[in-house]
Every structure is written in structure tokens, then in C-alpha cells.
């Protein structure tokens, strides 16, 4: 108790101020500006208190400040519950706690609060820099905690001791991370407050919506293929399928009858891969055409798109298989076909007329109409560009006959419109096309600028066929990438540009590190844990065996660390060990060996105290002195010393 109520020294106060600063600085972007300012004022106040050794503010003032801080948080957020208000409250408490550092227990409480705030950072971001920053803060806080019990050592030494302690804790942390039974869901899976900043495909497609996406180099998802990466031109990542057209935008039709199983048969070779999907706030899961399996907790829509039961708000990983050559929809329902033929009642008269002409010429022959449409698109000499001109009400006509400049959504929409006008069921498929293999870790990275739209045509007897109208005008978009297909001089995102090779190389490395972090640290879920345990030879571990393994390993690490620390003591001279037993015995008689005392000098002193044992004490001391300090001791000297000491009962 005396320790807990010891006053806080100046040095300890500086330590606590440093750790409070380290813990609260990363939270500045999360809390409102007035709170940052107030906290900074409290810190400066604390520094002045320490520097000038002023008296602490009176309690009534602190109580007022607590009330004011709480009121401020409540006014700001209308609540004190939830992630950001909670963290803001903790920052208020930390700042005020610094102003009432009276006793050692206040110091300890401040340090613990700092640990908690470090944890709070992870509620906002979980990136590698956050983790490094948090590690440094934990180091400073640990040093402050050490200083709270003993403030004499200089700062470097406190930090070194703290680092040593954290290093000793590291194996336990790793063991617990890897083996402690995991709960389903991500580590930091608390409901997030907002999702405004997430970019990605939406469920409508209008001229310019994908062109806008092409300016973003954010990662959409990463893919690891089990075998070879399929050729670029086959990498169609199926996203939302849009059948309903209102004259300007294409929309996803809300299909009710979703499939729980794959409704088509596999044909040809399959491709196995694993997708790590970045959160995008929508339900759909991207899969290579055509999906052969369904990720867990998902279903297949009637237009063959896997969708999750819950919106993807956290990074999601799923294994997938694709049948690139599968045939789907040969027996498509009349309703689906009707949906795929519906056009608005008016608009785009020129294209409608051409479509009607094809219809009269080829009748029901879908394949012939398709060939005519492809031929028509090729002859229009359309230009693929990131900066298409604005279009009026008749988007398809204006694009095809007037501006002739468009991005993939223009091509896909116009093509689908043309075929519908000719009576061939068609729909727009949005998604991603291509991707870039990161040479560092072998992952295929698909970014937002890989977003694409293409068409799907239904032909009797052949089912749904993928046609990419963009490829007719700009074949390099599909065979290589966006940069190759865009005319020179158009603004591309940095990463899509071919000439910045060094930047791409750097970005590849960074991306591989980030991906590793996502895969193995943030994405370490029960499945990963089971996989790891399986490779360790525990196929279906229950919590009992997990606990047993965990205890054994932790015990092992503990023993190893203890052995490492005791290394020096384990190498102790056996003669010295025997001598310590001897001196311990004499200590019980009140004759305490001083650590600097030579053996003979001690023996002389001891003999004076207990003259009856003088002779034996002298013998033992001489024997020990010869063993420890003499040249080449006799073989039985040590044994003799041990037996004599064992027999010595003062």
C-alpha cells in the first residue's frame, strides 16, 4: 500500500506525459478538433506543472472539467456509446488523469489507459503502419510503467528494459495468436460507423460510371490461382448482371429464384483459385466465369452471379472453381428471356431501325444476327477512350452514329440494345476484366481500374454466350490491359501507366507485404487456424486438445526463457554452489557471509564465533579456496568438499 500511495516524481510525470502523447496522437484524425485542442492544452498544462513544480489543480476543477468533457462528447455524437464516442471519452479521461497524478496508483492507471487507447487505434485502421506505431506506443507505455515503480534508471535503460520484456512476451503473443481458439469473423469486426468511402461497382450502369472507376487504383480483390494463371483474355470476373434498361441506365433485376446449387454442368478443364475480396458494401461476390462452386453463405442468382447473404463489409476470402467452357442457360425460363428482350417504348430510333432490319433479314437465326451486329460494330470505327463526350437522351444512337467515342459501358450497352432491337435476348454484365500478377508473391491483383462491362447473348441451343463488344474496337483492352487500349495522352491512374516501371515495381512489393498482412494477420480466421493445425498434424482439434497444446507450448516457451535467463547461474562452479550451501548453514547460526569476503577470512571470523567447529570450518574453507582458486584441483577434492559440507551441522 505504501508503494501505491507514493507520490509521483517529476521523472515519472514526464514519462506518463510522453506515453499519453504517444497514445493519443494517432487518434487525432478520429476525434473532433475541439477535443484534440483541449487534450493538447491539458498536456501543456501537465508539462508546465512538472516543469515549474506547481500544485495540481484542485479536485472541484477536475470534476468540472470531467463534466464539461462528457457534455462535449454527448453534444458532438448525441451518445457516449459506440466506437468514436467511446474513444473520445477515453481521450478526455486520459487528459484529465494526467492532471491528477498524485500517487503511484494514478501513474499505473494512466499507463493502463494508454494501453487501452493503443487498442482503440485498431478499431479504426488495421494496417501495418498502425501496428508498428502501436508497437512503439506499447514500448513507451511499458517503459513508463517500469518508471512508475523505479524512476532512477535513465530513459534509454528504461526503454531497453521495456524492449526486453516485450521481446520476452513476443513468443507468447505469437503462440496465442496462432493457437488460441478463434471466433468466426474478423478480429476487429465491430460494426463500422460509415461506408461512404468505399469505391467499387454499383448496381446501375450508365454512360461514364465505369470510366469514373477507371481513375481509381484501389484494390478490388486479389486472387491466387492453384495452377497456371489463365490467359488475360479469359479473366472475366463476373459481377452484377443488368437486364433492365430505362433508356439511360442499366439496372440489376431483382431476381427471386436464386439457385442454391450450380444449375449447369461442367465442361472441359476447371480453374481453381482463391479470392480475397476487399470490402465493397454490396452483396455480390466476384467469380471467374462461370462459377463451378459457391462460396460459403452465398447463393447463385438466376443470372449466375454468386451473392453473399450479407453485404461484404469486411475483407472476405473464399475458394472458388470456375468452368471457363461451361454452357449455361440452354433451357432458360421464358421469363428470363422476356426480361432480356425488354426495351423502353421509345428512344434510339436509328438503332431500333437497324435492329428491325436484321430481324427481317435473318429471322430467328440468333447467330446470324450476332454476326451482323459484330460486323456493324466493327464498321462503325468506334474509339475506345477514357474521356467520352457527354451524351444526350438517345445514348445508344448518339454513341454509335455521332460521337463514336466511348468506354466499355457504352460499347456493352449499345451492343445489348442492338441485339434486343433485333429480337435476340441479351444483357449487360458488369465486373472486372484482367488483373495484374504481382511478381513478388504471385497474387493476381484486380484493381478498380480493371472494372469492365460486356454483353451476354442468348442463342437457342447454345445458351448464354459472352460477347465483349469493347474487344471488337479495342482488342488490346482485353488481350493486355487498359493502358494498351487507351490512346496516348489520356489521364490514367499512375499504376496503370506502362512507363512508370519502377513505381510499379515498388508498388508490387508494398502490395505483396500488405497482402501478406491481410492474408495472415487480419485474415487469420478459424479456417486458416484449422489449416495450420492440420499441417501440424491435428486434423480436427476440439477446444480441449487446443488448450492442451497451447499450455504445453506456452510452458515450453516459459521454460526456454527461464533457462536463457538462468544460463549464467546454471553454469555455476559446483564448488561455489557447495560453498553457498555451507554459508547458508552458518547464516542460520547468525554468521552471515559477506559477499566480498574471501573464504579464509570468513572461516576465521566464523571460527571465532563458534570455536567448537573452528577446525572443521577451517578445513572446509581451505578445501573450497583450493578448489575455486587453486591450480588443477585433485579429482576427489570436490567430492570431499561436498561430503564435508553435508556432514557439517553447526
Amino acid at each position, binding site marked *: 500500500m505504501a508503494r501505491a500511495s507514493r507520490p509521483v516524481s517529476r521523472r515519472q510525470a514526464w514519462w506518463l506525459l510522453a506515453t499519453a502523447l504517444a497514445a493519443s496522437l494517432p487518434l487525432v484524425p478520429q476525434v473532433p478538433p475541439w477535443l484534440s485542442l483541449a487534450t493538447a492544452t491539458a498536456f501543456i498544462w501537465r508539462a508546465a506543472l512538472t516543469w515549474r513544480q506547481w500544485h495540481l489543480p484542485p479536485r472541484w476543477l477536475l470534476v468540472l472539467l470531467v463534466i464539461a468533457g462528457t457534455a462535449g462528447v454527448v453534444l458532438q455524437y448525441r451518445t457516449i456509446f459506440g466506437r468514436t464516442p467511446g474513444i473520445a471519452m477515453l481521450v478526455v479521461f486520459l487528459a484529465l488523469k494526467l492532471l491528477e497524478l498524485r500517487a503511484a496508483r494514478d501513474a499505473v492507471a494512466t499507463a493502463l489507459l494508454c494501453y487501452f487507447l493503443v487498442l482503440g487505434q485498431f478499431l479504426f485502421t488495421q494496417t501495418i503502419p498502425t501496428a508498428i506505431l502501436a508497437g512503439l506506443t506499447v514500448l513507451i507505455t511499458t517503459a513508463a510503467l517500469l518508471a512508475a515503480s523505479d524512476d532512477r534508471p535513465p530513459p534509454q535503460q528504461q526503454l531497453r528494459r521495456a524492449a526486453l520484456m516485450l521481446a520476452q512476451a513476443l513468443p507468447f503473443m505469437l503462440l496465442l495468436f496462432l493457437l488460441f481458439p478463434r471466433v468466426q469473423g474478423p478480429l476487429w469486426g465491430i460494426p463500422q460507423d460509415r461506408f461512404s468511402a468505399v469505391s467499387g461497382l454499383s448496381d446501375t450502369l450508365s454512360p461514364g460510371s465505369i470510366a469514373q472507376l477507371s481513375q481509381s487504383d484501389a484494390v478490388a480483390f486479389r486472387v491466387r490461382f492453384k495452377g497456371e494463371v489463365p490467359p488475360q483474355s479469359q479473366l472475366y470476373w463476373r459481377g452484377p448482371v443488368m437486364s433492365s434498361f430505362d433508356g439511360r441506365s442499366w439496372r440489376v433485376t431483382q431476381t427471386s429464384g436464386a439457385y442454391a446449387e450450380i444449375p449447369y454442368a461442367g465442361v472441359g478443364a476447371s480453374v481453381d483459385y482463391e479470392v480475397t475480396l476487399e470490402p465493397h458494401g454490396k452483396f455480390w461476390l466476384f467469380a471467374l466465369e462461370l462459377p463451378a462452386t459457391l462460396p460459403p453463405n452465398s447463393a447463385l442468382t438466376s443470372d449466375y452471379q454468386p451473392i453473399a447473404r450479407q453485404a461484404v463489409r469486411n475483407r472476405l476470402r473464399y475458394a472458388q472453381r470456375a468452368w471457363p467452357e461451361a454452357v449455361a442457360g440452354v433451357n432458360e425460363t421464358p421469363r428470363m428471356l422476356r426480361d432480356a428482350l425488354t426495351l423502353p417504348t421509345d428512344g434510339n430510333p436509328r438503332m431500333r431501325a437497324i435492329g428491325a432490319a436484321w430481324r427481317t433479314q435473318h429471322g430467328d437465326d440468333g447467330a446470324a444476327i450476332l454476326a451482323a451486329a459484330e460486323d456493324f460494330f466493327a464498321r462503325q470505327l468506334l474509339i475506345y477512350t477514357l474521356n467520352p463526350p457527354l451524351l444526350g437522351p438517345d445514348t445508344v444512337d448518339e454513341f454509335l452514329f455521332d460521337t463514336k467515342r466511348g468506354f466499355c459501358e457504352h460499347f456493352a450497352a449499345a451492343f445489348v440494345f442492338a441485339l434486343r432491337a433485333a429480337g435476340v435476348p441479351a444483357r449487360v454484365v458488369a465486373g472486372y476484366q484482367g488483373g495484374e500478377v504481382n511478381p513478388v508473391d504471385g497474387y493476381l491483383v484486380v484493381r478498380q481500374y480493371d472494372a469492365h462491362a460486356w454483353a451476354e447473348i442468348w442463342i437457342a441451343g447454345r445458351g448464354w454466350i459472352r460477347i465483349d463488344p469493347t474487344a471488337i474496337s479495342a482488342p488490346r483492352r482485353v488481350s493486355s490491359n487498359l493502358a494498351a487500349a487507351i490512346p496516348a495522352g489520356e489521364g490514367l491512374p499512375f499504376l496503370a501507366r506502362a512507363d512508370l516501371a519502377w513505381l510499379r515495381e515498388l508498388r508490387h512489393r508494398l502490395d505483396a507485404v500488405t497482402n501478406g498482412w491481410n492474408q495472415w494477420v487480419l485474415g487469420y480466421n478459424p479456417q486458416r487456424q484449422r489449416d495450420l493445425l492440420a499441417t501440424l498434424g491435428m486434423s480436427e482439434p476440439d477446444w480441449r486438445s487446443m488448450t492442451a497444446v497451447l499450455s504445453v507450448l506456452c510452458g515450453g516457451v516459459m521454460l526456454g526463457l527461464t533457462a536463457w535467463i538462468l544460463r549464467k547461474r546454471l553454469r555455476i562452479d559446483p564448488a561455489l554452489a557447495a560453498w553457498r550451501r555451507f554459508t547458508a548453514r552458518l547464516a542460520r547460526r547468525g554468521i552471515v557471509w559477506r*559477499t566480498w569476503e574471501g573464504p*579464509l577470512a570468513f572461516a576465521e571470523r566464523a571460527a571465532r564465533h563458534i570455536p567448537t567447529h573452528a577446525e572443521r570450518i577451517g578445513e572446509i574453507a581451505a578445501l573450497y579456496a583450493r578448489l575455486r582458486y587453486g591450480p588443477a584441483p585433485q579429482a576427489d577434492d570436490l567430492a570431499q568438499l561436498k561430503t564435508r559440507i553435508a556432514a557439517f551441522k553447526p
Partner: protein
Amino acid sequence: MRLPELEALLADINRIVLGKQRPIRLSLACLLARGHLLIEDLPGVGKTTLAHVLARVLGLDFQRIQFTSDMLPADVLGVSIFDRDSGTFHFHPGPIFTQVVLADEINRATPKAQSALLEAMEERQVTAEGKTRALPEPFFVIATQNPTHQIGTFPLPESQLDRFLLKIELGYPDPVAERELLAGADRRQMVADLTPRITPQRLIELQDRVRAIHASTALIDYVQALAAHTRTTPRWQAGLSPRACLALLAVARAWALLDGRDHVLPEDVQAVLPGVIAHRLRPTDDTARTDVEAITAALIEAVPLP
């Protein structure tokens, strides 16, 4: 298993220099360790007698050099004089060409004369007029100096002090010893009556034996720990140098031999420690300088045996 010849020798000295067993034993240890001895004390406490007796019982030649402020190096080392008969220069060796030299009141001489002696001590040879002459073997210098606060002294710098293996103080004899001295026979006559106990050859043998005394790793650890402590505590201006550690080990070995052991114990190190550190460690706090015993005790008690 003490060596009887050394015991007899010490008994002889103790019979003449009364009540000074410990300094006498230390000075013999210093001689056995092939070092030189510095005695700092007031005049008239028996420094000269001690040096004289030591030379006598060991059967060594003895010379005394009284240092004065007008002394020149040649007065110590010797001088070449033109011999008219042979028509050549002839070297007349100085008083340093002997086995035991008593350099009395060394801090009265100028640094020039001091350094002539100190260089000879270190190299055990004299270079005069381009010719190098070896000094006899064994060679042992006992220098005395007056306490430095006395008038008309040139204090020896630290680097020169370091050349002395040990520095001891004799101090006033206790009343019993003093009374015996006053009542007893003439010391000068007693010295003259002494017979050598050992030959110079035997002395060299014993010096070689000292070098062979075993110092175990545990003991060397201890010496290092002591030195490390002097280097890290702010109590001293500078810690013990490696040369000082060697000196400590050498004297501790001689001390162990005097005790009849073939290995050094921490007790030996502790016993000789005051003599080794007295002229080597300068306390940062000037007031503490005088009490060497107290300083040594504090040092010993601060360093546990490894």
C-alpha cells in the same frame, strides 16, 4: 606451508624496525614481485633503516641517494671523466648501479633528476653518453617522499607514480614499539651485525616462483570486477588502468607466496589493495584523500566476489 627462509628474514627485519609487520611484509612482497616501492611519510620514522635492513638480510648491495633540488641526472646515473693517463673518457657509474637503491626524498629533486631515476627503474638499464649499461640483478628501488604539502617539493605526476608497484606509509610506531626502540640497542649497529639470510641467486629464484603462482579465472574475474567498479563509480577521477590491474595481480601473487600458497586468494588481493591503489586512484572529493584504508575498505565492500 610458509617458507622458513622468508619467515626468518621477516623476523630479522621486525626485530630492528619495530611494530611495522604489515608494511615490512608489503615491501618484501613488492621486492618479490620485481616492483619498486614508494614510501610516503614524515622524516625519521625508519624509512632508511627499513631499506638498509632489507638490503642487508637479502645480501644485496645498498646505496642511498639523497635527492636535492640542485641535483642533476648525472648525479644519479654517473658521469664520464677524462683520464689523463690513458687519454680517454672513463665512465664513473653513479649511485644507481647497485642492487638496492634508497632514493631519499625523491620529490625534493627537479623533474629532470626524478625522471633519470624513474626511467632507469622502468628499463632496468642506464643509457649515458651513447652507451647502454645494464643495472645489476635483482634491482630494487625504495623511494621515499615527504607528504606533498610540505614546502619545496616537486610532486611526482601520476604517470611517474604508476611506475612504483606499491606505495606504503610507515607512520609513527605504537607506544610499546617506540619504547622498545628507545630502550633498545643502536639500530645502526644492529643492522651492521645482521647476516644475509638468502643469496641474490635464491632471491631471483623466488621472484620467478612468484610469477608462477596460480591466479584462477575466478580470481581474475574478481580483479576485473574491482577495476570495473573503480571505473564506473564517480568516487574517483579515473579508474584503475590495466597496468594497475597487472600490478595488483603481481603483488597479490607475491603475497600468496609469502603465505606459502601456490595460488592467489581474494584475501591476498584485498590485503595488498591499499598499497596498489593509494597512489593510483585520486578521489574526486579531496577531503577523502588521506584515509587510504577507509577508501580501500569501501571499495572492497562494494564489489562482491564473483
